[in-house]
């Protein structure tokens, strides 16, 4: 009964939040209360929240620590960025039908792998399925061989490092260190128009709501139970006959897909994607968001992503040199002091309060966990 009440309350809070995100914010923007800049910033945070959802699915629920999620984010962002780039080609400095950076690099024709990205549906498909595919391959190579835990974390980190190195190269024809930027229009709409940014924000908010609903349905299903079981006792689940590797591959691919979606939505609103966003550090930052927000709770992941990114925007403007120290300190502090993150804070406080305020008399003496047999037989 209490559970039902609590469920109703969360339902109410959630609908209110969705209402705020989807209807009220764009309305305020339309009226002029919220400026373009802030709407854009909110859209960026919401896109990153989708990324955090994916991370929470694999780390919070399944116990897979991937230190390379930013690579999937980058793949999605680059796929969409390539489409945007082509959509604006011909309007660059040189007026050539290919992106400007190719002109600098003396590439005269559009490379073959760029061709499909002229079409929006194909680009969108690539942004979603590309990361999922890469994640499937990595998962297939590792989970089936029972590479997990720390080893998996290290491997994905090496992957992020390698991807960062690769994307920095000019000969990949992806813009090198400068990445993809200077987008002009999407599907015929000029990106600079306020109407377009409102539309993009709406799509992002809907994407977040959709992803959240999907994740909630998933973790509430029987599959969610299996995933949690993998996190808590993988070996036992294996002995019970569950195809643990397949579950892990699936969830890793799904998280990759969410990251790709996040990247695609991010790049349209922020207008730039560079290799610096797909390296080791950005990947770890995603973990910080989830850890701070509260791993294993979907709301926590969203809260963490939005909260930390907002803090980052505020702090890096004022104390840029202190941000890494704050970030590192946050990490150490959160993991040691608040293992359940922001979302778990009320319960942690409750526990603390109970321990402090409840009369100690009710506490029972500790039972010895091991009873020596010779003692019991003497009795």
């Amino acid at each position, binding site marked *: 009964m209490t559970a039902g009440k609590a469920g109703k309350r969360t339902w109410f809070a959630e609908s209110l939040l969705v209402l705020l995100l989807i209807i009220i914010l764009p309305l305020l923007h339309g009226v002029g209360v919220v400026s373009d800049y802030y709407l854009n910033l909110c859209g960026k945070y919401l896109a990153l929240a989708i990324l955090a959802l994916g991370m929470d699915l694999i780390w919070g629920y399944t116990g897979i620590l991937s230190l390379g999620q930013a690579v999937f984010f980058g793949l999605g962002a680059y796929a969409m960025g390539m489409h945007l780039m082509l959509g604006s080609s011909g309007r660059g400095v040189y007026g050539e039908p290919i992106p400007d950076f190719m002109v600098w690099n003396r590439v005269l024709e559009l490379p073959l792998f760029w061709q499909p990205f002229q079409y929006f549906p194909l680009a969108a498909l690539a942004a979603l399925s590309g990361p999922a595919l890469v994640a499937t391959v990595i998962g297939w190579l590792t989970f089936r*061989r029972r*590479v997990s*835990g*720390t080893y998996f974390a290290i491997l994905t980190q*090496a992957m992020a490092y390698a991807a960062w190195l690769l994307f920095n190269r000019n000969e990949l024809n992806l813009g090198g260190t400068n990445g993809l930027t200077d987008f002009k229009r999407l599907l015929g709409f000029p990106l600079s128009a306020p109407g377009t940014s409102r539309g993009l924000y709406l799509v992002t908010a809907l994407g977040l709501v959709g992803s959240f609903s999907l994740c909630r349905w998933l973790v509430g299903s029987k599959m969610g139970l299996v995933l949690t079981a993998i996190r808590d006792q993988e070996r036992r689940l294996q002995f019970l006959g569950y195809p643990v590797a397949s579950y892990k591959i699936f969830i890793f691919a799904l998280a990759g897909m969410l990251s790709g979606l996040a990247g695609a939505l991010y790049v349209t609103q922020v207008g730039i994607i560079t290799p610096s966003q797909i390296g080791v550090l950005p990947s770890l930052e995603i973990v910080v968001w989830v850890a701070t927000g509260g791993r294993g709770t979907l709301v926590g992941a969203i809260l963490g992503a939005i909260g930390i990114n907002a803090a980052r925007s505020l702090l890096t403007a004022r104390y840029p040199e*202190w941000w890494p*120290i704050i970030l590192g300190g946050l990490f*150490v502090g959160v*993991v040691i002091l608040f293992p359940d993150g922001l979302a778990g804070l009320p319960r942690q406080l409750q526990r603390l309060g109970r321990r402090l305020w409840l009369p100690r008399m009710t506490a029972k003496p500790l039972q010895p966990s091991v009873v020596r047999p010779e003692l019991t037989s003497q009795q």
Partner: protein
Amino acid sequence: MVKRTLILLWSLCSLLGIGGVVGAATITPLDAYAQALATADQQRQALEHMRALAEPSYKDLLIALKEGTLYLWRDRLLIFGDAGAFTDLAGQTILDASGQPFLPDDATPVPLEEGNMSLVQRLLEVMNLTDSDPRARKAAALKLGSLRDAAHITVLKQALRQEGNASVRAVLVEAIYKLQLVDPDPQVRHRAVEHFANIRAESALALLKNLVEHEQDNVVKQAMHRAISAIEGYLQLRSLVGYVFNGLSLASILLMMSLGLAITFGLMGIINMAHGEMLMLGSYTAYVVQECFAAFAPAQLDYFFLAALPLSLLIVGAVGIGLERGILRFLYGRPLESLLVTWGIGLMLQQGVRLSIGDQTSVNPPTWFRGGWEAIPGLVLPYSRLFIVALSVLSVLAVYWLLYRSAAGLKIRAVMQNRDIACCMGIAARRIDAFTFAMGAALAGLAGCALSLIGTVDPEVGKTYIVDSFMVVVLGGVGKIIGTVLASLGLGMSNKLLEPAIGGTAAAVYAKVGILLLVIIFLQVRPTGLFPPKERATDAITR
């Protein structure tokens, strides 16, 4: 004939007292050729004649002629010096009656004829063969050797007879053989080619390649082809040895970093993401010690490194103990969380050092680390890198002794094999943890101190090596030291051997990517590395 006339002229002049203004100046026999030297079609002959006189001032004259500072004044030769005054050939400044530098209006420059330029050049080089500076002698021999004029062989041979310096002698011999390559006699050419084929001289390669096109004699031609392929084969071997040494050098750094990482991982199941920052702290210790020496004992600056080595070991080891006691022990049994926390610490250490000490600094290696050991001709292995390799070997031996020959090592291995039972036997497992963690950190610090010899000291230096050393741990497994050694060697070598194989500017990047793929493929075969610990528990590594 001309000579005689000139001498006559000269004696006449001196009798008449021309040049009386400069009575103090010496008149050398070379002055007799002044007129001839200034006449275009007699210049060459005059030069040859003057050469025969063997006057010491001949060299100055040649230089002045070449540089256009030689003047003819009343049948005498004067050199306009840098000081803005004329000197005679003996080097005396010419003064007028009042003791001021004498600047005559009627001195005319002696131009060097276009056709005689190379002659003067060559004469000067031959003279350099007897210079007092061995470096000048060497340079002259090199130059003459590359002239492709067999006429110089006699001069070089003469110089060789008088030469005492071994390295100059070697250059002379090479120059003679080089000149013999263009000798008209095919026998002589053949012998020279054989010589170069035998010593595998890189310096002769270009010349041989050039000459082989025009060689008439078939036997010599074939010998040349053989010599070329022999030299090229040697060059390939030499670069291969170079790559292997580079790989060895990288492997030793990786080894020093990964040893501690692997033992800590085997013992506690945690990966210390701040391990790269331990390396960085070691480098900064070296830097700070150097600054202290520069401030307080600049005379003994070279010895800073001797102080920095043990200090980096101690300081970084202390940081390691602090980390374990202060933070990691709260995360016991939560490997993924400790991984993240250590990463956070690493980030703070990086930025902290950047803010307090500064980035992009570097250490001046002590003078005794300059230069290197010429392992095979043409390949110099820097002493600093050799030192790093030696230090790494010593570290492995020390760790081996510690783990397998000491009481503490017995305890470490016991905890590694079965923590609970070890505890039951009275081993203070947590103290062992702290000790081992500190040891790993100290080793990384030592590596950082050594690394400061060959690279810059900056807060992100750990980044370069950390991913690779993680790969070493993954690849080597945590069961045995030998696993870490082999994995370091394998990674270091394949990195440095893949780079030239791929070629191009991006070789390092593609080598890294290739290595990662190789590691992943390797894990398909052995998911727990080369030497997994022998345990019955199925959750051994993957906890």
